[in-house]
């Protein structure tokens, strides 16, 4: 009982501190910092839900950004002001051209559509393993890309989908992020998470214990797709103008890198991975514009930040092939225990 209560207190304190920091950044950080904070929040949702699908089940999907795209487009079509719909999307089906939804329901619908698609393709894809699932999900990403680029009446094809209301802010993003973190955390430490990880570690043994491997994979895939769709919806109402190529390989690499740096299967790792990569790439992005240290003048070299990040990543994999945390979690209680031992 005491353990439970201490966990709850620590979690609530962490959430409180998070929002305090957010409030400080929001009040004093300015628009640039705010954009970074929102970006981190969205990436947290993406990486944590990717972790649910890829880390817990071991089926490495490279197609999740496709769900992000589905969530983004679906929600944006729903929230687009009616006046813009008639000019930008004149060929929209009637039932869509007449509605304009508020933000939250549009986000939920975006997530749900992503989930339904995940269910449909998951029924067959979840039978694959190893590199084949990566290839097949990458194929899914290409298919989504091609469909979005050519479904002119719904997406404006390759043209920019603009005019999406800017609904996303620090607060709604971070409420979602913490919600997703909490839910996935609970799944990890329940029978559902154990089934996923058991099937990941040894499928045959898992089946011999009565675990329905397919069902638990599908569950992970669908929940993950839902949250990825939500992240896409939040992103759409943050950036407000995008086209299909916003959701392709470079976005995939960036999210997957954050996941692997943190550690497949570790949610604490995902949080640290997102923060680390975001902040590091911001530093490098600003540094590549050239700077001077005393008499030493470094000229601008665009592209240097990507080159350095790539080298750092390879070095990182050499020394920590399983990421910062593997699939372990940061245990706050252990921190407290140590302190008690010292003080007592």
């Amino acid at each position, binding site marked *: 009982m005491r353990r439970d209560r201490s966990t709850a207190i620590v979690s609530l304190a962490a959430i409180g501190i998070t929002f305090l920091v957010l409030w400080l950044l929001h009040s004093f950080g300015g628009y640039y910092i705010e954009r970074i904070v929102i970006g981190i929040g969205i990436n947290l949702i993406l990486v944590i839900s990717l972790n649910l699908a890829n880390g817990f089940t071991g089926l490495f999907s490279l197609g999740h950004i496709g769900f992000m795209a589905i969530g983004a487009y679906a929600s944006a079509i729903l929230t687009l002001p009616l006046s813009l719909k008639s000019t930008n999307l004149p060929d929209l089906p009637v039932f869509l051209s007449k509605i304009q939804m508020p933000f939250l329901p549009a986000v939920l619908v975006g997530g749900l559509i992503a989930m339904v698609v995940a269910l449909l393709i998951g029924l067959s894809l979840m039978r694959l393993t190893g590199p084949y699932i990566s290839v097949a999900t990458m194929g899914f990403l290409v298919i989504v890309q091609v469909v979005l680029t050519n479904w002119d009446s719904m997406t404006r094809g390759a043209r920019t989908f603009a005019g999406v209301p800017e609904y996303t802010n620090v607060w709604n993003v971070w409420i979602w992020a913490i919600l997703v973190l909490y839910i996935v955390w609970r799944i990890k430490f329940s029978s559902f998470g*154990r089934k996923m990880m058991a099937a990941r570690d*040894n499928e045959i043994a898992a089946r*011999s214990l009565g675990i329905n491997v397919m069902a638990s994979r599908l569950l992970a895939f669908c929940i993950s797709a839902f949250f990825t769709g939500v992240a896409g919806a939040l992103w759409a109402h943050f950036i407000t103008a995008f086209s299909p190529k916003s959701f392709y390989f470079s976005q995939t690499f960036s999210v997957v890198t954050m996941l692997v740096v943190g550690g497949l299967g570790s949610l604490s790792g995902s949080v640290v991975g997102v923060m680390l990569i975001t902040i590091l790439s911001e530093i490098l992005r600003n540094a590549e514009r050239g700077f001077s240290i005393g008499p030493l003048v470094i000229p601008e070299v665009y592209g240097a930040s990507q080159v350095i990040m790539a080298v750092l990543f390879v070095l990182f994999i050499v020394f920590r092939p399983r990421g910062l945390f593997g699939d372990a979690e940061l245990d706050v209680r252990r921190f407290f225990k140590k302190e008690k031992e010292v003080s007592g």
Partner: protein
Amino acid sequence: MPVDMSQSSHVLLEVKNLSKSFRGLMALQNYNVQLTEGEILGIIGPNGAGKSTVFNLLTGHLNLTKGSIVFRNIDITHAAPEEIAGLGIGRTFQNIRLFGSMSCIGNVIAAMQMKERQSLLGAILNLSHFREQEKRFAMQARTLLALFNLQEHADSPALSLSYGDQRRLEIVRAVALKPRLLLLDEPTAGMNPHESAEVINLIKRIHDEYHLTIIIIEHNMPLVMKVCSRLQVLNYGEIIAEGKPENVRNDPRVIESYLGRVG
């Protein structure tokens, strides 16, 4: 689906003419067995005689070529492994198959939770029912681990255990499924005599405490003689002898084909 209710109720498993061929090669031919509840059956035979194939067919990990399997009066001939596990057949593997990155207790709970469903909502909302269930799982798992002297490893990853400990953990995990029938595939392989003796005692103990019916595949003859009430000898996929251990031991065909060579 229920079949042939005329069978006496204490028959747990009825296997008839079980056969399996790999690419035309017969790995197992017309294997028959009838197990009554509480029995401990030993299967012995040289490498490649088809012993593990019997287990893999019984648990649905391989599709059989011919024959029928009835367990607890239910035809499981074509059932999937997870259904068979649900009906109460637990097993270990010749080459250990643990959930390597999970803790030992996690391995055990993964088996335990088979019998008790959780609701996703309950888990996410961390409802009191869910919390109590998790607590009960942990307690029972620790008790089981303690039975096999693994309690101090409860929170370490399964892969970090020694070979012998891994074998024992796999048995604990199979027992945690609360099966009616337990299939043990070479439970003492790779162990020293002292460890083996310990495992033999444990097998006897769980047999008594949990009212289990057990089939053991084993090379270790003293073990087999000590715990089994009945023996089957397989060679080239066929049963060449069957009976009480002391009778089988003296069967000339067995001595010739198997015991003779082992010494």
